[in-house]
């Protein structure tokens, strides 16, 4: 089999290359030729094609994402910003926390278990790469309708995959989301968040510095995983007879990753690496070019040294393989012995595959023949940039206000049956069937986890310093108005953090959209990023990183625009956290914030097939006051719960169901007030002795407060409607087991 080398490429400039099959456009191919001054070798073509893909190059989103930098608020907390594997924030006492969300949507549709499992594996490696010990995961998910047959294939597999991988790594799952909507049929969203902690001095970067330093590949052996696409190249260019059965799915090995985590942490602890990068999408192509590009530039790699699981892999395939559970480190020669010893202790395969040079090129040889000779920046950081056409989509012109077909229950019977209907609907029903498949106790630092508003993790057992994290998205509001939708999602996430008693500190995101080649989708995307950048500036919160997932669509139908926002907060003493459930009788209930009568985008309207015509508009000043009030009043609350999906009806039901202690509340216009989802509202449960102080505190913060009722009894009573908890619980808890059990 002929190896396409740099000298052959020079001698045969006119050889036809399958660049189109690899997803490169004519002008992109021409650009590669002009960068190199010749045609690329097949290995170079492989590298450019994958690194210049939408997934790796962000070519459609880059022009928009740069707002996160331009509008960035000044933040002393930000230690590492966008551009590294994950951002890092200072949470005090010498601790640094890193967190990020990534998507693994399409693979999870193809092979739900493995797709979701390797999604968790990938984001955990990003966090580990920063030098941190991963300490928790979260999983915001979206599926097609709950009763659709394909959802029954996808959802159980995804849940088992997330649990199977995360549980085996020993990472508590502390929260997430599950939302069903038709548009996600065929396009489930599997986003995974990981958070990690380290000391400031332990932060690691993905940079290859220091001439003579060694490039070490360690972890799993390289197989043919995830290179379905490049097999085109291997077969067409060289050997048509060769079997091109290359799997496009990756299979995860959580045990290998668990061992890799412990091995890396021990290596970090002894300060044995100069730079480190995980291998994820685009495998070695990505890791070597990014390390070299971010460092001094020069690197030599001897590709035949890469340990293979499948000896039939061609050099192009080795470069592209997305085999999981691998890392690439830059190690000083005098430290390599100790590095290797630690790998041996953990039974982790480690191989020196090259070295950092004082040149400017990334040179890759295969058995002595030069097959790649490129400036690494052109591969990793200077890919194509598109300013895709943007147009406000047509659907926005035909949006209709919520009609009278959406009932407004008023009589006691109507209210009771409406609450039971709402709380048993898949989007609001109890998610224990899912969350009980996740370990939330491992590591022994979980202070709050699902179904609480935010996950809270203790960082320090002596000082009780902790962090809180919440992920949120409201895709229906984003559909109605992506600018406001993004702001509202972020505001909701902050509120969830503040309700638990933590101060919002930093933001990550995962922007899930349809095709960027559809101007309407691109408009949704642009508006979303603008909204996010604006609110982050206004709230003084830096965006520390994130991920963009495009092409989530079937035919011409895109998913609802789904910007998933993750907010990290810090809590000085986790013992002071506020839970969401009513834990005692005789408490007073207050509701904070104003409501209006816009049911657009609400769960209640959705149950009747309507979405309405206008999203709420974020009242930023109110939101800020509310957060400040929550933080100031933390010690006065017995429980606090944020109003979101399902409005007051859902919030009070959830508070009651948490510990089975009832409540009696009074509302004026039940038909609206129970179901409207006006943002910026919270219910607090307060000991009578503290009630006056809470009211005063709300007033000093300019937050509207009204009495809602009190706790006690074995029913949820709304005006004259009595809903026994047993009945409410049955409705709430039976939905998932019935659907998926």
């Amino acid at each position, binding site marked *: 089999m002929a190896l396409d080398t740099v000298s052959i490429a020079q001698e045969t400039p006119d050889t036809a290359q399958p660049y189109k099959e690899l997803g490169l456009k004519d002008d992109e191919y021409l650009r590669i030729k002009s960068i190199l001054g010749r045609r690329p070798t097949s290995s170079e073509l492989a590298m450019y094609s994958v690194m210049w893909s939408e997934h790796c190059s962000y070519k459609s989103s880059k022009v928009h994402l740069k707002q996160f930098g331009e509008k960035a608020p000044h933040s002393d907390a930000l230690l590492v910003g966008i551009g590294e594997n994950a951002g890092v924030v200072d949470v005090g006492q010498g601790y640094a926390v890193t967190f990020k969300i990534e998507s693994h949507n399409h693979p999870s549709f193809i*092979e739900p278990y493995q797709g979701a499992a390797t999604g968790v594996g990938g984001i955990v490696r990003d966090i580990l790469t920063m030098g941190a010990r991963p300490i928790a995961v979260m999983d915001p998910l979206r599926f097609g309708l709950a009763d659709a047959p394909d959802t029954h294939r996808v959802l159980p597999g995804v849940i088992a995959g997330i649990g199977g991988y995360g549980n085996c790594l020993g990472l508590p799952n502390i929260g997430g989301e599950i939302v069903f909507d038709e548009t996600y049929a065929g396009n489930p969203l599997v986003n995974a968040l990981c958070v990690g902690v380290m000391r400031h001095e332990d932060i690691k970067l993905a940079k290859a510095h220091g001439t003579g330093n060694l490039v070490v590949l360690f972890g799993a052996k390289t*197989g043919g995983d995830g290179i379905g696409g490049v097999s085109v190249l291997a077969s067409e260019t060289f050997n048509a007879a060769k079997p091109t059965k290359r*799997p496009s*799915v990756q*299979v995860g*090995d959580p045990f290998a990753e668990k061992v890799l985590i412990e091995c890396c942490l021990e290596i970090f602890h002894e300060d044995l690496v100069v730079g480190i990068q995980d291998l994820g999408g685009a495998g070695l192509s990505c890791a070597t070019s990014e390390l070299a590009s971010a460092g001094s530039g020069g690197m030599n790699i001897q590709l035949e040294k890469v340990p293979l*699981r499948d000896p039939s892999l061609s050099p192009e395939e080795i470069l592209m393989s997305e085999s999981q559970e691998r890392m690439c480190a830059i190690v000083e020669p005098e430290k390599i012995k100790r590095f290797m010893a630690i790998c041996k202790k953990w039974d982790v395969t480690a191989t020196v595959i090259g070295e950092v040079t004082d040149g400017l090129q990334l040179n890759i040889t295969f058995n002595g023949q030069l097959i790649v000779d490129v400036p690494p920046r052109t591969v990793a950081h200077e890919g194509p940039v598109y300013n895709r056409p943007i147009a406000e989509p047509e659907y926005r012109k035909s949006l209709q206000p919520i009609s009278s077909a959406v009932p407004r229950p008023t009589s006691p019977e109507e209210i009771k049956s409406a609450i039971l209907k709402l709380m048993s609907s898949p989007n609001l029903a109890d998610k224990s069937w899912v969350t009980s498949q996740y370990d939330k106790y491992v590591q022994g630092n979980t202070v709050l986890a699902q179904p609480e508003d935010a996950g809270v993790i203790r960082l320090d057992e002596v000082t009780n310093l902790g962090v809180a994290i919440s992920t949120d998205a409201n895709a229906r509001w984003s559909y109605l108005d992506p600018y406001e939708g993004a702001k509202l999602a972020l505001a909701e996430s902050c509120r969830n953090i503040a309700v638990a008693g933590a101060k919002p500190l930093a933001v990550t995101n995962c922007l899930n959209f349809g095709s960027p080649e559809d101007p309407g989708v691109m408009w949704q995307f642009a508006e979303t990023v603008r909204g996010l950048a604006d609110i982050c500036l206004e709230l003084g919160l830096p965006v520390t990183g994130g991920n963009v997932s495009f092409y989530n669509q079937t035919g011409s139908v895109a998913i609802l625009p789904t910007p998933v926002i993750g907010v990290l907060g810090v809590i000085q003493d986790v013992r002071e956290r506020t839970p969401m459930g009513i834990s005692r009788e005789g408490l007073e209930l207050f509701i904070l914030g104003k409501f209006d009568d816009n049911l657009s985008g609400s769960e209640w309207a959705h149950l009747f097939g309507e979405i309405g015509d206008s999203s709420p508009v974020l009242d930023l000043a109110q939101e800020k006051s509310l957060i400040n009030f929550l933080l100031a009043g933390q010690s006065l609350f017995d429980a606090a719960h944020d109003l979101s999906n399902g409005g007051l009806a859902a919030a009070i039901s959830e508070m009651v169901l948490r510990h089975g202690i009832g409540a009696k509340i009074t509302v004026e216009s039940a038909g609206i007030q129970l179901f409207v989802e006006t943002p910026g509202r919270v219910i607090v449960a307060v000991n009578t002795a503290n009630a006056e102080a809470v009211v005063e505190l709300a007033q000093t913060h300019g937050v509207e407060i009204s009495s809602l009722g009190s706790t006690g009894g074995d029913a949820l009573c709304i005006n004259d409607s009595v809903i026994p908890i047993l009945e409410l619980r049955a409705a709430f808890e039976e939905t998932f087991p019935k659907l998926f059990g």
Partner: protein
Amino acid sequence: MAKIIVEVMLKPEILDPQGQAVGNALPRLGFTFATSVRQGKRFEIEMVGQPTDAQMADIHKAAETLLSNPVIETYLIKVEN
């Protein structure tokens, strides 16, 4: 009464962490005979009488949709008496 055996194995190009774990454990226990280990599933399905052609077609369909995932696995059907 027939017994249908369905053997499901991961495709050779797919990573098999389970087989790998066994393959690594064997030499640690002093067993040196193996050069590679793959682990798969084995279903024993009992049925009344001998399978008709229509039933054989059904068995194939079940093996392909429920018992294996063709994206990563292959299956083999055997009939025993």
